[in-house]
Every structure is written in C-alpha cells, then in structure tokens.
C-alpha cells in the first residue's frame, strides 16, 4: 500500500516533468500579446506588492474590456509568485518567458531580481521595465539596451530629496554642517542611492550618516538607537514593505519628528502609514504619481473591471498609490507595444525585440496622457536611444494622518550630477560584462 502510493506520487511527478520537457509548441494562435507578471502576494513585502500587482492586472483587463486589446490584438497575462526572492524570480522568468507566444516585457517588481535578469534579457531579447527602481546606471540606453528605468531611478530620487531638503532649509548653503541620516534596507535596493548622496554631501558639505536595517526590517531598534544618539537634522527612509511602517513606529517611539523624515517613493504608500495613522502625521515621501479614483483611467477600471466583478483585488484599493503605479507601469508597457505596432505593423503581435523599440521611442505628451485618462497622474515622458528614463520629475507628498497630500512643486533631478555618474557606472558595468557601447546605427533597429 505504502509502496503503491509512493509509485503513484512518482508517476504524477514524472508526468509533470514530462510536460516540462516537451517545449511549448508554437501554436498558430489567435492574435494575443502575452504579458508575464512577476508579482509577490506573500511574504514581508506582500502589503506593498499586492496593490502593485493588482494594478497591473486590472489595467490589462480594462484594456481588453474597453478597447478589445491593442488594435485588435488581445492581451493575455499570467502571474508568477516570486516572494521577492531572487532565485524564485529567476525561475519565474524562465517559466514565463517562452509561454503563450513569448513574453512582451518583464516588470520584476524587485531590484534584486532586476539585477539578475539584466544579464538574461539581452540574450532572450525581452525588455525590462523598472519604473523608479532597479539599476540606476541603466538610464544609459547606449549600454543598457534592454533596461528601462522609466520615470526615475534611486539616484534621481535621492537627488530630488536633497533638493527639497535644501529648499525647506532655505538654500544649499544652509545644508553645510547639517546631518542627514539614510536609514536604508540593507540590500541593493537600499544601497543604490548612497553614491549619489555621497556626491551631494561632498558638494554641500553636509554630513551623511548611513544606518542600515537588516532585511526585511522588522527589527530596527538598533538603527533608531543610532538616530536617537546622533540626532540627525533629517532622516531619509529607504525602505520597502514592512520596514516602512516599522520605521515610522520606531520614529514615533524615539520621538524623532516625522516632519523631518523623507521617504523614497517606495516608502510613500498607504500600507506604509495606514497602521501608524496619526503617528505618521507630517511624514514626507517622494511622489512619482498621485493617488485617487478621480482620473479617468481609474473610473474606467471601476466601470469595466470592478463593475463586472472581475477586479483582481478589493474595490477600495483602486486608486491607491501603489495600485496607481502598477497601472502606470502596465500602461507604459502597453503604450510601448502600441508604439511598436505603429512601426512594425498595426494589429500584429509584437515580439519582445519590437516592443523594446517601442519603449525606446515612447513619446507621451500631455495630450496623449489626457486621452489615456492619466491627466494629472504623472508627467509627460519621452524616451530616446540614449535616455531610457524619459523623465526624472517627481514631487513630495505629505501624510496628514488620513491621506497623502501631494505638494505642488515639481522637482527635476540635477543632470549635472546624475549624468556623469550614470555614464561612469554604466561604463564600469559594461567593462565588467564585456559589453560594448551601442552604435548610432543600432539605435535605428
């Protein structure tokens, strides 16, 4: 009996493996554009990863329901749970990249996974979109042909925070001698902004203090003890997931003024402050996008997706900060596909390589954004062969205890600082990987 059941288990496993061996046959498919979705709905980062994932999926559903796809090409998707772990992310990538006629674009939702996929994408010819995260050096499209850190990187974010702090302090000269502490997630994600901040600290001679928090960041007592001892004038919070709300609670316990705390755009969403509520009042964060259900795109999602009970997540999540970001990421992926169709044939299924061209030639001006229903949600952006970011503008938002209020001033990262850094880092990366700089001719392809 026991042996029998073991044989059964072995047989089932073998059958499963056999279906892995047979490569996915290239069916003559109905016209379908496949978007693989790397997500995490479990683990310490799930509170933030889930709305993001839901935003991506809902936008695909909405486009299918409202427009019937892109010029008649239906959109399909499949999710894979990465749990924010790099090796699992690589497995998911391998699993989804060849499915359903080939992946269009990957949004890894994690800096660590992005790093690992950056090597694989050029071989598989699939673009990576890393909106506001990933490798900062990837802005240089002449070296990072397949990476698209659209709308900002950690360097531009850090730069904008310094600009804003200088502004509130009353000018860059006032920063001299001030202490700014960076409380960061001890991973590539948290470490990325450090070179930029060091550059700035040299320029304005402020004192940069680096305080790491071990991932996932549920235990921050030591970090906040350091904050308490050194009493920095400002604290920058470079956290993700459960680390953010913990940091705010610790700040409250330590008595560090929340008004002096500035988070990156990954530390400025509802799940980060909701539990802390009034305790987080006055806390600031970078804002890549607005929140709210008033934009037309959110109304459409409510109407075409949630109105038909097809919503991925709960209805009241629509329009939250990270949900909106997920929607933007999916919109950019779809617009890149649409742009590619304009060149390679309308109503056709685009390959990853063609969509890459679309990403490189995105031109979303205000008019276009308005027609897409994104009026006021984000700034216009236009990419080029050399610039894979498209826009570095961001604002600051402040939590008032119940909602995020976006301040009106837009900041743009200082090109004078970022550009040489990007160039140097990209060159170093290329030298290590033995990549060569793209030629002008390559930009046409």
């Amino acid at each position: 009996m026991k042996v029998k059941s073991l044989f059964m288990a072995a047989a089932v496993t073998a059958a499963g493996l056999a279906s892995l061996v047979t490569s996915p046959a290239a069916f003559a498919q109905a016209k379908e554009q496949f978007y693989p979705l790397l997500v995490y709905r479990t683990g310490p980062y799930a509170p933030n990863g889930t709305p993001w994932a839901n935003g991506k999926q809902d936008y695909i559903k909405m486009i299918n329901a409202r427009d019937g796809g892109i010029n008649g090409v239906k959109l399909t998707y499949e999710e894979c749970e990465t749990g924010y772990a790099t090796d699992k992310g690589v497995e998911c990538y391998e699993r989804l990249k060849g499915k359903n006629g080939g992946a269009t674009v990957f949004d890894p939702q994690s800096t660590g996974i992005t790093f690992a996929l950056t090597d694989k994408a050029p071989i598989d010819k699939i673009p990576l979109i890393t909106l506001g995260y990933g490798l900062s050096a990837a802005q240089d499209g002449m070296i990072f042909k397949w990476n698209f850190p659209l709308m900002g990187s950690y360097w531009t974010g850090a730069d904008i925070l310094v600009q804003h702090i200088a502004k509130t302090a009353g000018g860059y000269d006032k920063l001299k001698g001030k202490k700014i502490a960076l409380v960061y997630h001890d991973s590539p994600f948290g470490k990325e902004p450090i070179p930029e901040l060091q550059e700035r600290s040299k320029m304005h001679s402020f004192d940069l203090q680096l305080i790491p928090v071990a991932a996932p960041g549920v235990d921050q007592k030591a970090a906040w003890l350091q904050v308490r001892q050194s009493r920095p004038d400002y604290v920058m919070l470079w956290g993700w997931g459960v680390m953010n709300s913990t940091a705010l609670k610790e700040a409250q316990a330590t008595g560090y003024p929340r008004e002096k705390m500035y988070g990156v755009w990954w530390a400025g969403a509802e799940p980060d402050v909701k539990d802390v509520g009034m305790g987080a009042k006055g806390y600031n964060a970078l804002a890549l996008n607005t929140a709210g259900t008033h934009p037309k795109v959110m109304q459409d999602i409510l109407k075409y997706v949630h109105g038909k009970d097809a919503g991925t997540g709960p209805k009241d999540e629509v329009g939250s900060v990270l949900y909106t970001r997920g929607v933007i990421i999916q919109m950019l992926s779809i617009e890149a596909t649409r742009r590619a169709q304009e060149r390679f044939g309308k109503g056709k299924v685009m390959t990853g390589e063609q969509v890459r061209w679309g990403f490189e030639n995105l031109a979303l001006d205000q008019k276009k954004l308005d027609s897409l229903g994104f009026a006021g949600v984000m700034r216009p952006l236009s990419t080029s062969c050399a610039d894979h970011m498209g826009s570095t503008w961001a604002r600051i938002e402040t939590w008032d205890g119940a909602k995020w209020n976006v301040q009106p001033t837009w900041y743009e990262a200082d090109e004078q600082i970022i550009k040489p850094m990007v160039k140097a880092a990209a060159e170093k990366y290329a030298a290590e990987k033995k990549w060569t700089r793209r030629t002008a001719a390559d930009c046409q392809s």
Partner: protein
Amino acid sequence: MLYRENGQFKTSYRADQQIFPILQDRIAIALVLVLAFVVVPFVASEYLMRAILIPFLILSLAAIGLNILVGYCGQISLGTGAFMAVGAYAAYNFQVRIDGMPLIASLLLGGVCATVVGVVFGIPSLRIKGLYLAVATLAAQFFVDWAFLRISWLTNDSSSGSVSAAGLQVLGLQIQSPASKYLFCLVFVTVFALLAKNLVRGAIGREWMAMRDMDVAAAVIGIRPVYAKLTAFAVSSFIVGVAGALWGFVHLSTWEPAAFNLNRSFDLLFMVIIGGLGSIMGSFFGAAFIVVLPIVLDNMPYWFGIPIDTALAAHLTSMIFGALIVFFLVVEPHGLARLWSIGKEKLRLWPFPH
C-alpha cells in the same frame, strides 16, 4: 527477478570493494549518466534546464558537502549558506582581480577559501557538540552576511553591494547556453560525487563515521578527533564553497548576500535530513525534493488548467510541501535514501517474497 546478484561471484578484494558491487546497479548508473550527459542536453527544454536541473545539480553538490559534515561526521552545521557565500565571493574576487584567471581555477580557489573559513569555524567543534555546535556555526552565517554587506572591498566596491560574473568560458568554450551551463555543472557534480563517495568509503570516511557514532570510543581506538573533525569541516566546506561559486556564477550570475542567507542553510540541512543522513545518493534525493517539488506543486494548477489565485497557489505550495516533509519524516525517519534501499531489498525478492 531482474535485480538479483545470484551468480555474480567476486574473486578479488578489489571486485568486492567496488562502489556498485552488483552488475545491475552498474548498468543502471551507466544508463543514468548517459541519460544525463547525452540525452538530457538535447531533449530538455530551456526552462527545465535553467530553472530546475541547474539549481538541482548545484544544490545536490552543496548537499553532498553538508552530508559529509552532518551525515558522516555528525557535526551539525547551520553555516552552509555562509560557506557557499565565501566560495562565491572568493571566486568572484579571483575572477575580477586577476586578469585572465581561468574559470575553473577561480571556482576551485573559491572552494579553497571556503575551506579555510570552514576550518576556522570548525574549531569550536573540538569542544562543543550537537545543538551547541549548531549555534556556533550559526555565527559563521551572521559573520559572513555582515562581511559581504559591509566590507566593500570584498564586492569590488560595487555601489549596490551586488556582484556579477559574466562571459564565462572554459578553454575558449563559452558557457552561455543552457545546455553548456547544465553540462558544466553536471561535470562538477559527477566528479565531486565520485570523490566524495570514495572519501567516505576510505579510511578517512571511517574515521568520520567513528567520530559520529561515538567520539570517545573513536579516540580510544586511536582516531585523532582534531584531525577527523577538522578534515570533515575542510572537505565539506570545500565542496560547499564550490557549489556556492557555481550557484553565483552559473545559476544566478548576479547575486547579493541575500542569495546565501540563513534560509539557504536551512534548506540544505533539510535536504540532507530528508534525503538521508550519511548517504551520497540521499543528497540527490533531498535536493530533488526541496528544489523540484515546490516548483512542481507551483505549476500543478496550470498543468491541470485550474484557474487559481497566485497568492493561494503560493500558500498551498508551502502547506503541501510542509505536510510532505512531515509525512516523509514520519514514514521513514532515515530519509529517502533509506526508502530507496528498502525498495532495492524488496526488488531482490520480487516476485517471490517469503
């Protein structure tokens, strides 16, 4: 009926001491090797190779290394992830700092560095045993995590703290395609598995096992505990270090210390315990169980076309996986390797059991 050693007479000690004394076993192993080396690279899909076979092979290697320490020498270690990390980062440093360093040499030197670290953290084993030792090796894990996060020299001053290896080649051959990566790992695993098997069959393996079974008695019959324990740490860390280097270079190609965190150590310990303590074969079973099973479970809903929520699927995977671990430990506490040998025993009598 087919699996029976009747009529296979051994006329020399050599013949009696072979790894596989039964002819049928030798044929089976030869077939498995032919399958792995010749057939698999041609028929396996890219996904199967990259996402399943390569991690399986590398973690099998690491499990063999850990099995030498835990299964054969009886020293519990929770620092396996750390030794893997040392191997990976050391190999990386040899690769970037010395121009024209051959890949295999840097992987092996990575193993050598892991050996040194392993022996250093093995020294407490001379005084403490069992759970206390486990806690001491846990220190290795924390120390190594700290070192690779904090000492920027070790990561070649990479601003993000993550390092990457690219353009792998051996003797002018590119290790780029999934098949070549798979074969590269397979060669390493085969060679090291053979070496490990021979080590544990030899004098030193007997010393380890004597140490495991009762260290006082072993010392009385003339086995030096210092030598036996530290060689176990050395050999184990070397193999684990090479596995770590392969994990970084071949599987991930870009990694950060989180790739070798405490979870990795636990996973490897589970592999060894579930696969079978003190069994090279068991290391492969354990690795297959821990690496392949969650992926199979994860994919199950898609194969059967059941639409299921991603989060629910992930939770179900963990639940079923956990239940299966408990099930196997209850059914056979000595691991899958023991089930395997029971199966072989039964097969010998089949179809006429007494």
